[in-house]
């Protein structure tokens, strides 16, 4: 009885899947720089196919990062199969037995990815052994993702791969996703799931907007009162263990974690656990129980910031820290007589942007002393704060972001583009197309200006987003940004993208990320 059922199954699957054409193609996302697919097919046997280190590789079984990736990608390729051997025999042909992974430079398996990491790789699929070659482990991770996307199943369940050759490297080296854990706390699990999704889309930067006005979930060792008083509840915090978990999970996927501690605005929640940090506001000359931005005129402010950022720069291995600097509201500063007095002393006149600059410059000095680079929101540049030449300016104000990119790069700064990719702004229908059509270098400027655009970030701000809706809102909409930042500029065909994205979203669902549908249809599970 059972046997009969099994024999029937392939036939049923074939008949009942009218929309699944027999010759399903591999759906690569983001599309590599160069792909050559031969019509010749190889089959993979789930029971015996292995991913192993190449004999010439500088990495070996003691490279945990790669070992873990081999395990992970084997599972992604075959994992949703309950009984592997029942399905694999429908295609009789040459077999692909192994994928050999070779790292050509000195491997640093325990390192963190950085702004200079090399993500290029070359993948040759031929019988009986495929070869993945990368200079660094980071490229191997990207190549494994591509390999896993090349494998597909015929209607009878056999695992197939075309003989093929892929040469690939990213167009931009900064490809970020911003999450906001202050407006709503995101459970660690949600963050890890987001990192999974990022790896599937070859994103390499998690921009962690960790605190803001609403809550301060980061549990500081030096200033525990910040989260004691500033988090939504004692359960809504990220302990140091949580942070380490996120950092390691990200590292294993070749993803940098750039924390943002935004000051001097967006800091209401800081004030709860740190007395006198924020500016007391006045109404008609009388101090009221309301606070404004960080108080820039007190020495204690800078003592606090030194200690705090010393801790942050130690906890986060990443070379860059995001310092925020956006949307500083001057109303409270204007109301405060001590600030007014200080402005007079410094000769700032009525120009509160000078006071803002004063604060930011002192902060930047503090952060520079920890040997970290920094990223700031565009206002810091707009307000003419003196910046080091390697500062990264994040452009977020639309719609004239191309003009801003032009200015930022003309001034010689690096730029990251976020403005057209605010994914929290939802609308009905296929808005991924809008994100996909954006061209980051579409501004007037010299070649060397364009070189200063290092990438972009898809931002999912948290006002209306928490663990309940984050994943379907982020994926596959962010995938559109992922391809724009990885693939060549001429990869812009919406119809082709639609086909690949539809399958890519199904793949994400199969791998455990609840990505929402692109349009009407269904996924073969």
């Amino acid at each position, binding site marked *: 009885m059972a046997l009969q059922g099994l024999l029937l199954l392939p036939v049923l699957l074939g008949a009942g899947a009218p929309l699944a054409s027999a010759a399903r193609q591999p759906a690569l996302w983001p599309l590599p720089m160069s792909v050559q697919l031969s019509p010749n097919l190889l089959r993979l046997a789930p029971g015996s196919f292995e991913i192993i280190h190449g004999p010439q590789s500088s990495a070996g079984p003691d490279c945990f990062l790669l070992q873990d990736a081999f395990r992970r990608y084997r599972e992604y390729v075959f994992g949703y199969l309950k009984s592997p051997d029942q399905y694999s025999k429908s295609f009789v042909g040459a077999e692909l037995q192994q994928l050999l992974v070779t790292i050509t430079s000195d491997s640093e398996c325990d390192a963190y990815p950085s702004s200079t990491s090399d993500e290029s790789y070359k993948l040759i699929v031929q019988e009986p052994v495929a070869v993945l070659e990368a200079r660094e482990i980071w490229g191997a991770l990207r190549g494994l993702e591509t390999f896993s996307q090349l494998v597909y199943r015929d209607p009878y369940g056999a695992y197939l791969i075309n003989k093929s050759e892929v040469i690939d490297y990213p167009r931009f080296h900064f490809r970020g996703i911003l999450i906001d854990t202050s407006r709503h706390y995101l459970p660690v699990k949600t963050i890890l799931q987001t990192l999974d999704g990022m790896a599937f889309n070859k994103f390499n930067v998690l921009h962690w907007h960790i605190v803001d006005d609403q809550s301060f979930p980061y549990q500081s060792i030096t200033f525990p009162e910040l989260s004691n008083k500033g988090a939504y509840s004692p359960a809504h915090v990220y302990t140091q263990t949580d942070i380490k978990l996120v950092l390691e999970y990200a590292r294993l996927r070749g993803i940098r974690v750039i924390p943002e501690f935004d000051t001097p605005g967006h800091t209401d929640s800081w004030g709860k656990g740190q007395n006198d940090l924020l500016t007391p506001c006045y109404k008609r000359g009388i101090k009221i129980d309301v606070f404004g931005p960080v108080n820039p005129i007190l020495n204690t402010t800078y003592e606090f910031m030194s200690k705090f950022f010393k801790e942050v720069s130690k906890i986060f291995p990443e070379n860059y820290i995001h310092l925020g600097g956006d949307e500083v509201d001057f109303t409270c500063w204007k109301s405060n007589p001590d600030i007014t007095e200080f402005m007079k002393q410094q000769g700032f006149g009525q120009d509160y942007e000078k006071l803002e600059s004063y604060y930011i410059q002192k902060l930047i000095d503090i952060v520079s002393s920890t040997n970290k680079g920094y990223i700031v929101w565009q206002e810091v540049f707009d307000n003419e704060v003196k910046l080091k030449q390697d500062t990264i300016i994040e452009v977020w104000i639309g719609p004239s972001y191309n003009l801003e990119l032009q200015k930022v790069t003309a001034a010689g700064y690096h730029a990251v583009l976020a403005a057209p990719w605010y994914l929290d*702004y939802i609308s009905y229908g296929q808005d991924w197309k809008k994100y996909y059509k954006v061209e980051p270098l579409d501004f007037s400027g010299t070649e060397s200006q364009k070189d200063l655009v290092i990438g972009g970030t898809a931002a999912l701000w*948290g*006002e*209306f987003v928490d*663990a309940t*809706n984050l994943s379907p809102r982020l994926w596959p909409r962010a995938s559109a940004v992922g391809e724009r930042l990885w693939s060549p500029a001429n990869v812009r065909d919406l119809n082709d993208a639609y086909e690949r994205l539809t399958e890519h979203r199904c793949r994400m669902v199969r791998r455990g990320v609840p*990505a929402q*549908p692109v349009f009407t*249809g*269904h996924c073969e599970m």
Partner: protein
Amino acid sequence: MTQRPRYPSVSRTLPLPVGSCSAMPGPGQAGVLPPPLLLLLLPLLAVRTLAAQPEAYVWPWPQKISVSPNVTFALKPILFRFQYSNSSAVQLGCSVLDQAFVRYLGIIFGPGPWLSRHHPGLKQTVKNSLEVFVNVPGCDQFPEMNSVENYTLTLSDQQFILKAHTVWGALRGLETFSQLIWRSAEGMFYVKQTEVVDFPRFPHRGLLLDTSRHYLPLQSILETLDGMAYNKFNVFHWHIVDDPSFPYESMTFPELSRKGSYNSATHIYTIGDVKKVIEYARMRGIRVISEFDTPGHTLSWGKGIPGLLTPCYSGSTPSGTFGPVNPILNSTYEFMASFFQEISSVFPDFYLHLGGDEVDFTCWRSNPDIKAFMKKRGFDRFEKLESFYIQKLLNIVSSYRKGYMVWQEVFDNNVKLNPDTVVHVWKERSPFPYALEMQNVTKAGFRALLSAPWYLNRISYGQDWQEIYMVDPLDFKGSPEQKSLVIGGEACMWGEYVDETNLTPRLWPRGGAVAERLWSSQSVRDLDLAYNRLAHFRCELLRRGIQAQPLYVGYCEHEYFHRMEQNHP
């Protein structure tokens, strides 16, 4: 970097009266004070905050509720139970209520563990049971359009009693009771002295799910029914098939789903599945109205039933594509008669939704046989052909003693309808603004059902629930008789962009805005109060396992924990 929201932000500074769930943090947060002191302060905290807060966190808001803030009763989870009143017309053995009692004990108290039963310091009177009285017998029937859902709930020192005319009203009362109870930080359960007199404003409070554009697993449908019960919705409008797929497994015509579903092994609803949905809904006082939309929206039907759809022509030859149901063949009506006979017996509700929307005439126009038929019949417009079809279909369905609901085009195109037809208004602006359509439909003496402003699949940035909430279905020009013909409304979740990955957060709590509009008194329109109650209710939904998305910034004590592992290969 994040632009300030464009709508009024709601103050987060007010504390909740130590609820089991808190949408807004505040100075009254538990855990700061040692437990005994906190207990003493409980009523005080509550009183202090009541001025600006709703009297109670109930969604949808009852017709009449009075809460005595100073009298609080304690409930002990180990001892508390529901019991049938001696004089109640239904007693132990009543499936609907026996099940509901178990369900609501779980909802109210959770799985435990609870504190020991010794509370030496407890100041409140302990109540160990809620008596439930039902006026009329009947536990095995299905809820209907005119089922009475009224109930009264009296929680006082003398009485702890829920009275309802029918078991359906008792279900609504149990839901309200469950929302009145809160849990203190130490895990004790409390409820204030409360009097509720409640009944729905409209008898038809529906939610539409579309299982054709995307297949929804049974589990998603059952979870939606849970969420509906929490919101006092009482109609599940199951738009079960459409152009893209035919997941309903017909006994009479198994080829329909074998050929027309996305995947005939995994993407179908068997008769067993359908029965499960109907019974699960019944247990929650929810009617299931199936929609088999014809003559348009039927591409998926054509795969299993050759000859059912109109062949389209390009010039003088068939193009290989198909249009709406072919209205000129006898075989079409023979098929419909058999098919709807099955549907009439599978779905117990008196009403069937027959669709009838968006019939595209292009294909009919191209087909020479259709043109010849029209000539023979003297039809000068395709609307007449549509009417011809619909009238024959209505006769078929009437012969099975079923009532029917149709989308507004059927009325707009002047199809002759039985006077008890329900016309479903879905077009927002054209050909008429929906208020004018409501006016026209009721003026013609038909009952009307409103969905036009409640297409929840349409999303936009921000708190769009407010717009949904401020709609009033009776906001059109018409006599009182006309207004009384409006039987309610339905929130629609069309499936073009919705499947199990995003259904629940897109539906809740936005669907709640429709629920309150259809249940509560017309005068319940205060957005600030609604925000506070809805934010609280959203947290309560999370606590109950419904993946409802946030209204705005804030947190819930019981956050959602997604099921990453279960989804994982």
